[in-house]
């Protein structure tokens, strides 16, 4: 079916797809060491459930999902856990993160695989299996799939399967659809069973004729519809694809589920099928190694394979390679350490050279030509957002819907002044998120402070009440038998001590010329006197002080 709808803006960057799509998917050989990051998904990182020295089997859970938005991670092969420590991970910060290192034993022995008959099983049991199998969205954001595949009370009208793969250079979904269409469709069936949508639309850009043909033949008799869309970046963006296929626009600040649509990647559907029908967790994925390498192609590689080994498998980078890009050239970022491992979210690694990716010309001032606004697929005003982000006017940036920006890079691509607009949006977003986090922290500390104050007041009051009670009891006892010799002796002793002190003070005052102005001393004496004279029985802080002072004497 041809697609009747359109989204706003979009650009046509050079595709560069054929470089890596000529060769079939190759299964990468088992590397000697695998480094599995515990944070491979949106949400909380997984919690390690193995110890250093443990022997693990292929597909065994080594990190459990921690909290609602989280996913498990698994051993990609059998071997021994040699380290659980921070290691370089593919992240724009270049900061290390907690990883589990496994020394492969070469046997590649599977743990027990338990497939599930999803048609008879409880949907919640299927979702629990997806969580424990570490299924996350393989389109890039790596959002835990079991959360997404829970319609709740919302009626789902459309399940959109994203096979658009609009980003230049990347062909991993294309090859997966060509070679494993039947398995993808089996996965879509499971998703459809969980979501019960009225229709299932599979969106593919029309530059992948083989994939379209394969998916169409696999979908025969299922009722799923393959919809082709003209090539236009970023048609593979979730909200853009939904607009393209259904004509519905996801409102600002909302998620597709709010309009009865769910969108999932074809790669995710494939892993859902492997997990439910074969009991296999996500331990490998298809990744495109392309750009300035000898044999660009797609590999089915184990999660945790160091990226430099994958680059070697693709024939190695040519000598003029300057750096590596993770993801596509539009939305990806520069990798600063090729020793970082493959994670679930990586669909492509590009070796870049100055010839393939010439450095951007120096940026010029914004001339407010609004070409970026014409290209923006989110209907934003990038020139305004740039202005506010540059001047750190974050409230304004937020008011202009900065958080609807998907960082697709269309504005960067068309900007005649070559301004790195997306870098400004990323900066502004991070600052706003950090400010919000600080605000929440400040509010929490205020609450803790107020609670502490309240507690201290209460403790003081309680103590005062206790003291007053005691004093009253003693007074009552004294009143009952005024001739108690013990009490009388005590009283006399106290009286004598007070007299003695008074005499001593008077003597000292008479002897030494006072070094301090007398009023100060008088005040001090008065204060003390007040405390002694008025042992207030009220449970007030002042009373507490008074009562406390009378007690020891």
């Amino acid at each position, binding site marked *: 079916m041809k697609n009747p709808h359109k989204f706003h803006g979009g650009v046509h960057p050079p595709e560069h797809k054929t470089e890596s799509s000529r060769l079939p998917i190759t299964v990468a050989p088992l590397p000697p060491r695998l480094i599995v990051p515990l*944070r491979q998904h949106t949400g909380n990182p997984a919690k390690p459930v193995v110890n250093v020295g443990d022997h693990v089997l292929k597909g065994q859970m080594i990190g459990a999902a921690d909290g609602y938005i989280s996913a498990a991670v698994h051993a990609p092969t059998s071997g021994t856990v040699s380290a659980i420590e921070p290691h370089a*991970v593919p*992240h*724009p*910060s270049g*900061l290390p*993160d907690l990883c589990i290192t496994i020394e492969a034993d070469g046997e590649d022995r599977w743990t027990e695989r338990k497939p599930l008959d999803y048609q008879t099983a409880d949907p919640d049991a299927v979702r629990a299996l997806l969580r424990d199998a570490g299924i996350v969205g393989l389109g890039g954001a790596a959002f835990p799939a079991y959360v997404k595949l829970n319609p709740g009370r919302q009626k789902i009208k459309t399940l959109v399967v994203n096979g658009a793969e609009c980003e230049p250079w990347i062909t991993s979904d294309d090859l997966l659809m060509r070679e494993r269409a039947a398995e993808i469709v089996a996965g879509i069936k499971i998703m459809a069973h969980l979501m019960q949508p009225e229709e299932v639309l599979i969106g593919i850009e029309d530059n992948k004729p083989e994939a379209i043909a394969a998916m169409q033949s696999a979908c025969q008799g299922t009722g799923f519809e393959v919809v082709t869309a003209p090539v236009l970046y970023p048609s593979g963006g979730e909200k853009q694809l939904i607009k393209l296929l259904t004509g519905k626009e996801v409102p600002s600040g909302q998620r597709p589920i709010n309009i009865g649509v769910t969108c999932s990647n074809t790669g995710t559907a494939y892993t859902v099928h492997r997990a439910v029908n074969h009991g296999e967790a996500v331990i490998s994925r298809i990744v495109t190694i392309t750009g300035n390498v000898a044999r660009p192609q797609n590999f089915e590689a184990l999660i945790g394979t160091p990226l430099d080994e994958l680059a070697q498998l693709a024939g190695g980078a040519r000598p003029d390679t300057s750096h590596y890009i993770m993801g596509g050239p539009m939305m990806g970022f520069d990798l600063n350490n090729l020793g970082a491992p493959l994670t679930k979210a990586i669909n492509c690694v590009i070796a870049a050279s100055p010839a393939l990716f010439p450095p951007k010309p*120096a*940026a*010029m*001032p914004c001339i407010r030509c609004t070409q970026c606004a014409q290209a923006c697929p989110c209907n934003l005003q990038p020139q305004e957002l740039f202005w506010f982000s540059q001047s750190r006017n974050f409230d304004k940036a937020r008011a202009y819907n900065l958080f609807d920006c998907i960082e697709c890079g269309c504005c960067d691509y068309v900007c005649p002044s070559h301004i*790195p607009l997306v*870098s*400004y949006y*990323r*900066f502004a*977003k*991070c*600052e706003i998120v*950090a400010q919000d986090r*600080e605000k929440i*922290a*400040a*509010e*929490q*500390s*205020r609450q*803790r*402070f107020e*609670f*502490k104050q309240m507690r201290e007041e209460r403790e003081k009051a309680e103590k005062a009440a206790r003291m007053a009670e005691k004093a009253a009891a003693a007074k009552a006892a004294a009143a009952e038998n005024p001739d108690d010799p013990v009490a009388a002796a005590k009283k006399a002793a106290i009286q004598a001590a007070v007299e003695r002190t008074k005499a001593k003070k008077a003597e000292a005052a008479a002897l030494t010329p006072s070094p301090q102005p007398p009023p100060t001393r008088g005040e001090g004496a008065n204060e003390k006197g007040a405390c002694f004279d008025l042992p207030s029985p009220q449970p007030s802080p002042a009373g507490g002080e008074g009562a406390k002072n009378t007690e020891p004497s």
Partner: protein
Amino acid sequence: MVLLAVILGAVLGFASIKFKVEGNPLVEKVEATLPQTQCGQCGYAGCRPYAEAVAAGQAEPNLCIPGGDNVAKNLAELLGVEFKPVGGDEGAGPKPKMVAFIDESTCIGCTACIKVCPVDAIVGSTKLMHTILADPCTGCELCIPACPVDCIAMIPVQKNIATWKWQYPVFELKKAA
């Protein structure tokens, strides 16, 4: 005319009761701007007293040291006064976020720090070592002078991937020919 005056008077009287504002709303706004470290570095007993003093015009809006120039700027804007940098020098920025850390082998378990911590971020008991919960710790440094054995140190908060931020893009404008 008299009737109208009576009616309007009644409306005004009713409105003054119905829409009575409790306390000074400016104090709340100022307090919401402050970082709530409760450190007392401004010279007041906590953020609330400082907010009250600022709102009453008795204190300068640039005394909040943990908040740095950002907070001073926001307060100046809120009060409609001219911004003055914290500590007198422009661009000092807020201090890097620190948290207190107790050397547990030196701690004697005196509970002195627990009593002064404004946010109950220290756990421990008499004659048992204490430790600091890093999350609620505001880095106010009030526990440092309280410790009789000097076993508390301030350590900078570790950067990690979850709190990492994209930096302000720095690029060259075209060089003048």
